[in-house]
Each structure stands twice: as structure tokens, then as C-alpha cells.
């Protein structure tokens, strides 16, 4: 990469006033560093990832509203977690956490466990208990 061709595109970094450091060669072929506000292909890759994530969240919401899954699934997706990460935060086995995503199992969970889930998801307990269209 040549120093004068370091991309200065708009990105989520630049919107926070952040810049990242790149290594590039100057006109004499010497390496040095320079800052970049962003690069479009990266922004696209991030957008593709975020779109995918939002779709997962929407699908999870649908499943919960249809009574196929418990709100655990929705909040897990919203927290960008998967089963292993959630299990690790809960200090439980993956299959147990997966089981809690079944609506009939979820209904029987005691308050301590629900509270722990709420803490992990950084939400209030009632958001888990009274899940609805606006959640």
C-alpha cells in the first residue's frame, strides 16, 4: 500500500472520530504509519455482518412471539451471542441453556435464574418475563 493511497472513506469509526493506523510505503519505498478514517470494502463487510445479525434477531423475535422459543433466544441474538457464549456467561452447560430456550421449560425457571439471565443480557427481569411485540 502506498501512503498516498491510504483510503479515507466514511465508516463507523469516523462517525466516532476514531482513526486507525495503517502501514504504508512513501515515495522512497520506506515504511511508515499513517491514519485512515475507513475503507469502503470493510464497511460493506461490516454491513453484511450487521444485516445478517439483524435478520437473526428478527427471526428469533418471530419464533418467540409464535410461542416456538422462549425470550432467551431473542435476547441471546440481540446480545450477539451464540449458545456457547451464553452458556459461558451463565456458568452452565450449553444443553441446559438451549433447554431454557424452550417456552415450557422457560416458564418453570425460578427467579434466581431469570435474574441471572437479565444481568447477562443487561435488561430488566420483566423484559424477559413479559415479552411482547414491542420488546
Amino acid at each position, binding site marked *: 500500500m502506498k501512503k498516498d493511497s491510504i483510503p479515507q472513506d466514511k465508516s463507523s469509526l469516523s462517525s466516532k472520530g476514531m482513526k486507525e493506523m495503517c502501514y504504508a*510505503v512513501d515515495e522512497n519505498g520506506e515504511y511508515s504509519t499513517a491514519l485512515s478514517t475507513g475503507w469502503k470494502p470493510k464497511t460493506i*463487510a461490516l454491513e453484511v455482518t450487521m444485516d445478517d445479525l439483524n435478520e437473526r434477531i428478527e427471526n428469533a423475535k418471530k419464533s418467540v412471539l409464535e410461542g416456538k422459543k422462549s425470550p432467551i433466544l431473542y435476547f441471546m441474538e440481540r446480545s450477539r*451471542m451464540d449458545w456457547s457464549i451464553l452458556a459461558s456467561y451463565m456458568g452452565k452447560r450449553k444443553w441446559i441453556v438451549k433447554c431454557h430456550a424452550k417456552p415450557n421449560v422457560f416458564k418453570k425457571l425460578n427467579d434466581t435464574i431469570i435474574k441471572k439471565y437479565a444481568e447477562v443480557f443487561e435488561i430488566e427481569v420483566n423484559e424477559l418475563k413479559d415479552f411482547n411485540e414491542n420488546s
Partner: protein
Amino acid sequence: MKIVEFQHHQSAHCENGVASNVLKFNGLDISEPLVFGIGSGIFYVYIPFLKVNHAPAISYRPMPGIIFSRAAKQLNIKIKRERFSNEEKAFAALDRNLDLGIPSGLQVGVYHLPYFPDEYRFHFNAHNLVVYGKEGDNYLISDPVMETTSVLTKKELAKVRFAKGAFAPKGHMYYPTSVPTEVNIEKAVLSGIKKTTKDMLAPVPLVGVNGIKFVGKKVAKWPKKVGIKKTNHYLAQIIRMQEEIGTGGGGFRFIYAAFLQEAADILGKSSLNDLSQNMTEIGDDWRDFALHASRVCKERVKDVNAYQQLSKMMINISDKERKLFTDLKNSL
């Protein structure tokens, strides 16, 4: 508590940045590319059975923490690493270090870091930063990928130090306990390069240049095997791993090229300057791959030829890197 003058230098990659900043504080002036090269930071591995954000794991660098450990070993620097079973102990140890005026490196999770843009907050637990002081209940942070220093409350810092999931940091704190004033930099550079050529040319399918070729072939097969949508998701993940904050662009290839240039001076070998130039060209090829792959992702191209093209680009990169690392090995 002891007030220390800690110089924050922004870097491309967090781990090398922490290493370089902490070593500079301890009187050893060493650049980020030099830490990276001596620590054999350039790498490639494909781990299909490990899923990260619902896509197979691909890494352009070795396991977290290894670059600094290797570099420290080569440079005869002693590093103390501590992990903790609970937050109290983790903070007692950190406060003890700050009282003694020891800036300390921490491994942290990115998801709860408040100063990162939301799009960058994923459950990635191998980020590194330095805590260099404390004001009241707030900790003074030097995060090497940021332009300036930051501040985190104890609660915020506790969250990132005890993030969960793969590579959970468990409060991991590290700091040098002895830094020699004289180091044999030539020897360190040589063994760093040797290790790199060995790893990149490893005779196993998923690692190094073979790994790149393996993934290159997969890219052509994914559309049929997992569908266009998932393929695009996988490609997006590849681009992100390759270009995300911390790589310095082109999957660390430019940092490595910068290292080869420094190495040419240190070892007095002008052939390394030519190899640095080749590495820069390969870095540009990776950027070109990212550019094309991002277009394919965005336009949701249904044309399988587009994926064949990307596959060819990657296989071509693998061939070029094989030649480069072989030449590098033979140049020593």
C-alpha cells in the same frame, strides 16, 4: 500511588502495541513491526469446526498472547502473567501494580468496551490494553488502537476483564519483571524469521500458505455447498478478519513488510528489502481480494463465476506467499 509518565503511542495491532508501549516505558525502544516480526506474528490458520459469529474461524495471526511471549523470550525479557479466579483478587493485583508504578497489560473482551463503535462490539476476547494509572475509582487506559488514552470505571473494566466465551481473559494481567538494557537484536530477528517461515510453510493442510490455498478452494465450493447467502456471510467474515482494526491492513502483511525493512537494516541484508517489496505487493493483492469480495457480498451476485474468480485470487496469493517464504528461508 505512584504517578508514572506513560507514553501512549497508537499502533495498528493491540498486542504488539501493548508490548511496544510497555517495553518503551521500561527503556527498551522497540517498534511495533519489530515486536511483530520477532514474535513471528504473521500466520494463517483455518479452523472450520470452530464457528465465530456463525462462520468458520479464520485467523491471520497466532493465538492471543503468543506474539508478545515469543518476542519476550527472544529478547530475554521476563514477563509475569497472572490470571484470577475472581474480580476482587484481579483488582487487588492491578491496584498493587499501579501503586508500584508498573503499567500493566490486560487481556480484555471487546463487547463491553464503551469507547468502541457499536458495530465493532463483538464477543472477541483477545483485545489488549494497558492500565497505567488510577484516579479515584477510574482507571487510566492506554488502548493501542486508539489515538488517545481513555478512562474506564472499575465496573466497566471488571466487565471486560471477565468477559466470557472463547479465550475468556479471566482477568489476565501481564507485565515485564526484568528488561535487559542490552539485547541481541540480530539473533532475535533471525529466529523470529525462522519460526515464521517454518509456520507459514508447515506441511499441514489448514495452516500457513497451505491453509490459504485450502480456503481459496473452499470459496469456489461454498456457493453450492452452503448457498449464496451463507457464502457471502463467510466472505464478509474473511474480509473482517483480514482488514479489521489491528491488522494494519492486508491481513498484517504490511506490518510484516515494514518488519522486513527494519530487519534488512539490522542484519545488513539488502535482499530483505526486496522481499519486503514483494510482501507489500502481496499485501496489495489481499486488499484487492477484499475489494472484490466486498462487491460480491454487496451485490449478492448469483453468478458462480464471481466466486471462482475470488477463489483464483486467493490461490494465487497462496502461491506467491509460498515463493516469498521459501525465498525468505533461503536468504538467511
